[in-house]
């Protein structure tokens, strides 16, 4: 049963990715600008612009460009960047590696912190601690990353000089050095996500605390700690897992501002640069990689959800 569930999810993801690739291609054509001009500058000789566009193959009909790219992609070749005139795969792999590292640091910090915040708030509902966590979390979520990022850089990078401003670590750096460089850029992400996760965890906890099974568990004489750990948390965290999974796409590909501010070559800034220079092969490949990541994260969330709550799994296939 679980195999059918996974197979169906993968089939749906493939259709989604195909539609996504078509959408990205045609949206890319609508974007303003000219590939050769993006490289040469606005005061390039028109003859040069035409020759370069021809060399790059961007003067071919749209369908020819798309079919040529999709055929190569399906054969495992992600294509060549118009701008860098080199295969896009190394760029994408390096960027996705960077993004995963940053996302991992942020998730490792924010998930336990957010859940703890939500649990503490729910256990102190309508008390000052609950208000501090709830209002503080929402305020941190609303604060744009470029504002919190600049403030954090000024405090920890410029004034105190405790943390490096640039997320790019030196060549050959070890794991600890890499993590050290990622602390500061992860902090704005933690601030943004803490509010979401804490609120969802709080809402789930309040609902679970108010449920019949919790009452039964308490009346059975279980200790409060055991009730929370075995019965409340397990049910309360289901919606929180979905929230975390839906943020995976954002954490991998949506961090343009944070990546620019901290000079980090992740997928977000790669996509942004590719879109502004109409580098279609780079844009298409990077977006599809994000799409695959997002589909995988959603699949994992669904699986976790169904493992934690068998009613959902069974309900889907009855």
């Amino acid at each position, binding site marked *: 049963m679980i195999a059918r569930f996974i197979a169906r999810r993968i089939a749906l993801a493939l259709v989604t990715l195909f539609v996504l690739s078509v959408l990205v291609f045609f949206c890319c054509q609508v974007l303003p600008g000219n590939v050769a001009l993006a490289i040469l500058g606005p005061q390039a000789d028109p003859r040069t612009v035409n020759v370069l566009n021809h060399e790059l193959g961007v003067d071919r009909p749209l369908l020819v460009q798309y079919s040529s790219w999709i055929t190569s992609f399906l054969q495992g070749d992600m294509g060549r960047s118009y701008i*860098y005139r080199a295969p896009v795969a190394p760029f994408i792999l390096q960027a996705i590696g960077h993004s995963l590292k940053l996302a991992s640091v942020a998730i490792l910090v924010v998930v336990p912190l957010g859940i703890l915040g939500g649990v503490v708030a729910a256990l102190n509902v309508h008390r000052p601690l609950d208000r501090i966590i709830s209002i503080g979390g929402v305020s941190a979520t609303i604060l744009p990353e470029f504002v919190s990022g600049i403030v954090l850089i000024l405090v920890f990078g410029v004034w105190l000089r405790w943390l490096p401003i640039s997320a790019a670590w030196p060549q050959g750096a070890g794991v600890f050095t890499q993590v050290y460089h990622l602390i500061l850029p992860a902090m704005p992400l933690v601030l943004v996500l803490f509010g979401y996760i804490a609120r969802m965890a709080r809402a789930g906890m309040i609902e679970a605390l108010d449920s019949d099974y919790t009452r039964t568990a308490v009346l059975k004489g279980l200790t409060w700690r055991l009730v929370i750990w075995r019965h409340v948390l397990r049910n309360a965290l289901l919606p929180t897992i979905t929230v975390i999974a839906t943020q995976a796409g954002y954490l991998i590909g949506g961090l343009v501002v944070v990546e620019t*501010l901290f000079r980090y070559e992740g997928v977000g800034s790669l996509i942004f640069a590719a879109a502004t220079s109409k580098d279609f092969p780079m844009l298409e490949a990077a977006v599809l990689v994000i799409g695959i990541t997002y589909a995988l994260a959603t699949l994992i969330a669904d699986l976790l959800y169904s493992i934690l709550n068998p009613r959902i799994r069974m309900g889907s296939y009855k």
Partner: protein
Amino acid sequence: MARKIKLLDNLRSGLTALENHLVDGYIDGRVSRRELLRHGSVLGLSLPFLGRISLAAGFGAAPTLARANVKPGATIRVACHVPQGAVDPLIVGSEGGLAMIQQVGEFLCIDGSDLTLQPCLAETWKPNEDGTVWTFTLRKGVKFHSGGEMKADDVVATFDRLADPKNASNALSVFKGVLQKGATRKVDDYTIEFHLDSRSGNFPYLVSSDNYNAIILPASYAGDFEKSWDGTGPFKIDKYIPNVGASFVPNENYWGPKALPARTEFTFFRDIQPEILAFQGGQVDVINALPATAGVALLSDPGVDIISVKSSGHHALHMRCDMDPFKDPRVRRAVALCIDRDKLVKGLMKGHAVVGNDSPFAPIYPSTDPTVPQRKQDIAQAKELMKAAGMEKGFQVTLSTEQFLEIPTYVQLIQNWTKEIGIDVKLEIMDYRTYVGNAQYGTSRWLDSVMGCQVWYHRGVPNVFLGGGLTSDGPWNPSHFKNEQFDTLNKSYVAALDLEAKREASGRIERLLLDQSPVVYGYFFNHLTAIKKGVAGVQPNAMNQIFLQSAGKE
């Protein structure tokens, strides 16, 4: 200081009539010492020789270029814009890209920050009598990083590659109507001739660092520069990572004085704000190109040295001469008279600019005619002109431009100033790519808009500003200014070989443009470089190139 007639005669005896005419102008006071150095360098006279002329004429010696008193062996860390695309000398056009190729490559001559040409891979150069053939003598014993000696064949191949319309050469816009493929000819291993399509008095600038694509590459170069980084420069590539950065180490076989730094590191940024934060956080020592508006915090920081190099870069406000409401030159003049140029320089540009006079002849150009009256804000006269043109009730117009540095603030100021004469300017501010479009007529807001504002970067000579931006057949003439008299004057300016003839032509062009005012040139911005105190010897120029061979830490 007394004039040494005999010495002066001896020095002048070997000069051509053109060169002697320049020296006459200097002795008679028509040409300043700075102009003697600048224009003498264009004609191929060396700076030490010009210094001896100055001394013999009784005006003192020319200033010498001394190395800064720094310790060798430092690592110099530079914040730099990310190169747009692959680094290839043939096509490179972005600020970051041209700074990269210039670290390993060299030009025949270098356009200094004061526009004086200095010999580099060419030791001397001379025009023929009518300026149609320029002969360059190459430096001997110069080695490429790959080991071969640089000779005439390499230079010929480099310029043939750049002038070939079949190549995607970014230098074609510079060589259009001047140099064709096959016109660079080898005389011997160390002598080449450039046979020009027409006379050009500024030609050495076109083969200097001013034409940033023109680094000399081996004749065997077949593309893929990022694999070889083969040049003759004082630095060799150490590592280049696209989008991340590059590092360079000294070239031990360099023909000139060895580079002082043990290593230079360039870190790429996509935006200026992170550059400034990295500088403040001590992660870089130098910001190569610092915009005045974004860099305010650094301009007054006592821990920062700012090198402010005058440039001919500007923000051109164009008005369509072939469309209402700007068909009448009186209306265009009225708009130009609304602009408070002093406020632009002091307020908008924080003093790091000089006022413009509605022509591309920036004050730094030696040929700019200082006798042309400076246009100033005069609202009363502007109102009179509007009345004379039948526009006293004013009109509404859309000003299109790009979201780039201080341009949005500049056009807002224009909006406020022109309100005083009844013009209701609606601003249409868009991203750079939407504004520039395909950079061809009919598919570009920049070239098609009734009124617009666009950045033009520094050039050592105004040829591209004039020929590309203002002539009837110019490819980037957004004002659609078509004026036969201007076209003729432009030709005579470009062809003129001696400084006074150039100044005569430019004076006439400047007066014509003041009368016609197709474009408002409000100010020419300086190129700013921020350097951490304790770092010295960094030599930037207005082209965004940065020379680090003399850099070190005190």
